[in-house]
């Protein structure tokens, strides 16, 4: 069992999604995260072990490399892609409740802003860390976000903006969330966003990269 989970973990770390993935060259033609996940489940490995001992450690290692400057966003995305390829086999177990996620992360691009590449990347990496992601899309008003917060009690919220003109809409959204759900963790990000702005509007955390968001979410859950 540990061998297949180890290989699964290595595939996620290396960004090897499936047998036809061309990278890394040394694994060309070999099974990727997609096939290994199916094999593990067919061999009777519990879906929780597949997630917690196979997939999540692989993402954690690429995250550590990112933190050390030994890997960059493209490699994180390759790993997230491999993780996603494997996760589709776990979806029935998430749906049945047999496998628990770490938490729910509601994310969106704020009102007035249509840039979603940063938000999409954060969503993939957060999902790869074991969270359920509820992606509300772009140009989101406070009402839509509040609806999602009410539907997913205890969720964390990630707000993204690329423009200084739309970044200011974060303040209103944070205020609205705080008024009705004061304990909700709110993360903010995007090119013009700074730590100072995050503090000024009363959000919990600013991260310039997806890995920072994952580390914060994990530490917040551990502290809860």
């Amino acid at each position, binding site marked *: 069992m540990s061998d297949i989970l180890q290989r699964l973990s290595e595939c996620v770390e290396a960004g090897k999604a499936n047998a036809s993935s061309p*990278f*890394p060259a040394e694994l060309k033609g070999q099974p990727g995260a997609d096939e290994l996940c199916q094999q593990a489940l067919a061999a009777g490995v519990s879906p929780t072990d597949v997630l917690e001992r196979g997939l999540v450690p692989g993402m954690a290692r690429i995250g550590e490399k990112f933190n050390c400057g030994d890997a960059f966003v*493209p*490699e994180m*995305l*390759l790993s997230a892609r491999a993780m996603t390829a494997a996760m589709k086999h776990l979806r029935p177990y998430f749906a049945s409740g047999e496998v628990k996620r770490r938490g729910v992360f509601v994310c969106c691009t704020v009102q007035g802003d249509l840039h979603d590449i940063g938000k999409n*990347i954060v969503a993939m990496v957060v999902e790869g860390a074991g969270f359920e992601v509820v992606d509300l899309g772009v140009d989101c008003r406070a009402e839509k976000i509040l609806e999602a917060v009410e539907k997913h009690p205890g969720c964390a919220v990630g707000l993204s903006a690329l423009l200084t003109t*739309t970044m200011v809409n974060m303040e209103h959204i944070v205020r609205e969330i705080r008024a009705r759900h004061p304990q909700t963790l709110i993360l903010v990000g995007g*090119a013009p966003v700074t730590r100072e702005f995050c503090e000024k509007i009363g959000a919990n955390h600013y991260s310039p990269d997806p890995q920072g968001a994952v580390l914060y979410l994990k530490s917040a859950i551990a502290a809860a």
Partner: protein
Amino acid sequence: MSSEPVPADGREILHLRLAFEDARPPAENVCTVLGYAPGAAPASVRETVSALLACDDGLWSIEGGGAFYPAAAVDLAERRLVVDGVTLDIGRTVAGQLARSEGVFVFLCTAGPGIEERSRRLMAEGDPFTGFIADAVGSLVVGAAMDRVHDRVEALAGACGRRVTNRYSPGYCGWHVREQQQLFRLLPAGFCGVSLSESSLMKPIKTVSGVIGLGRDARRNPYTCRLCDLEDCLYRRLQPTA
């Protein structure tokens, strides 16, 4: 590249269409803006960058240019630029850089919608890796295309005994991005097929806009990131001493 400035609505308008070849960035620059030190990008990244840079199958519709305004006034105290009756609140830094300009060239340059659509499609189809790299390539292409426009403006200004400054854009160097609304009043409607949203978002997204100062004492410097407080910016990543 084609086209020379032509009079339109009382303004001299320059409109260039560029081939991808005129704006193709070096692969190493793409790797640099993705975060990698020279030669350090993994094979997966290098090969994907090369494939995207080799691709010219209708992906690009690069055009740029703008309007020459021979007379413009910079108010250093008020941090404003007044052009043809339009007042732009450009902030202290840009006002200082344009202080010796007698006129301005208001520019716009776009890589077109193709690369943005490709990036979005790749992401939607489950390939965020290539989608992300395509997005970075689009940013560099529009920057390189604008370099060509800037060069042409410099040559045209030089023929009239004037020099050019660096280029400055809303959203950078303390010039608020909402000022796009005023800037667009100085360009022909629908110029280069670019539209501006209420929140000052340009579509296509891979578009740049701004002003270049013109004057006998104007100066174009090779490096200006030190003037800007935007820390997470691809242009900064391309500067070795930034």
